[in-house]
């Protein structure tokens, strides 16, 4: 059973579609459940790979 816009529904009664995005910044997966032509559930899982760093600098006298 999963949460949907129509309440809890049996996954088996829905059309499941998945996707993935992978690049230097993230690895993301998502899952969608469709009831006919209607999207009733979509979840996403973003895994961060590398984020901005701050470079410290100092000056000599």
């Amino acid at each position, binding site marked *: 059973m999963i949460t949907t816009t129509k309440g809890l529904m049996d996954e088996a009664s829905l059309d499941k579609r998945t996707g993935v995005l992978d690049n230097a910044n993230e690895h*993301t997966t998502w899952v*969608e459940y469709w009831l006919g032509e209607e999207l009733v559930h*979509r979840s*996403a899982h973003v895994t961060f790979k590398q984020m901005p760093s701050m470079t410290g600098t100092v000056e000599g006298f």
Partner: protein
Amino acid sequence: MANAQAMCTSFKKELMNGHHQFGAPTLVSRTSLTVPTPDSFKAALYLASATRGAADTVYSVTGEVSGTGYTAGGVALTGAQDWIEPNSSGTTAFSTPTANIVFTTVTLTTAFDAVLIYNSTQGDKAVSVHTFGSQTITAGTLTLTMPTNDATTGLIRIA
């Protein structure tokens, strides 16, 4: 304009002034505070059309997502303390939120692609903006999984 991944410039200045308490170090007393309590932090989501970035100084509702199950201001970071105790390796200092950031059972139908992490203890001062591929959520859950906490991938790194 678009959201841009960045460590907020104001955050860099505030680090020098000791505004943010990620961990729980033992300090030499300046007045009376020697064992500070770590601050609390939150994470807010922003629409793909927003303009969050290095110039952010505090949390803002401008461009923030809205929808069923989402509260303005986002969610609190969780864990015994919100960030893993800051550490260093080689010449790089780093820290990462202790737990993944999860928005449970929300519906966010307008595309979003950024999260702002900010210090809710210290006047909602901005820490950093992190971008990702544009997403929507329908009666579902958004999970932001934190990277490995090390000198190469830690969420906040000062090299």
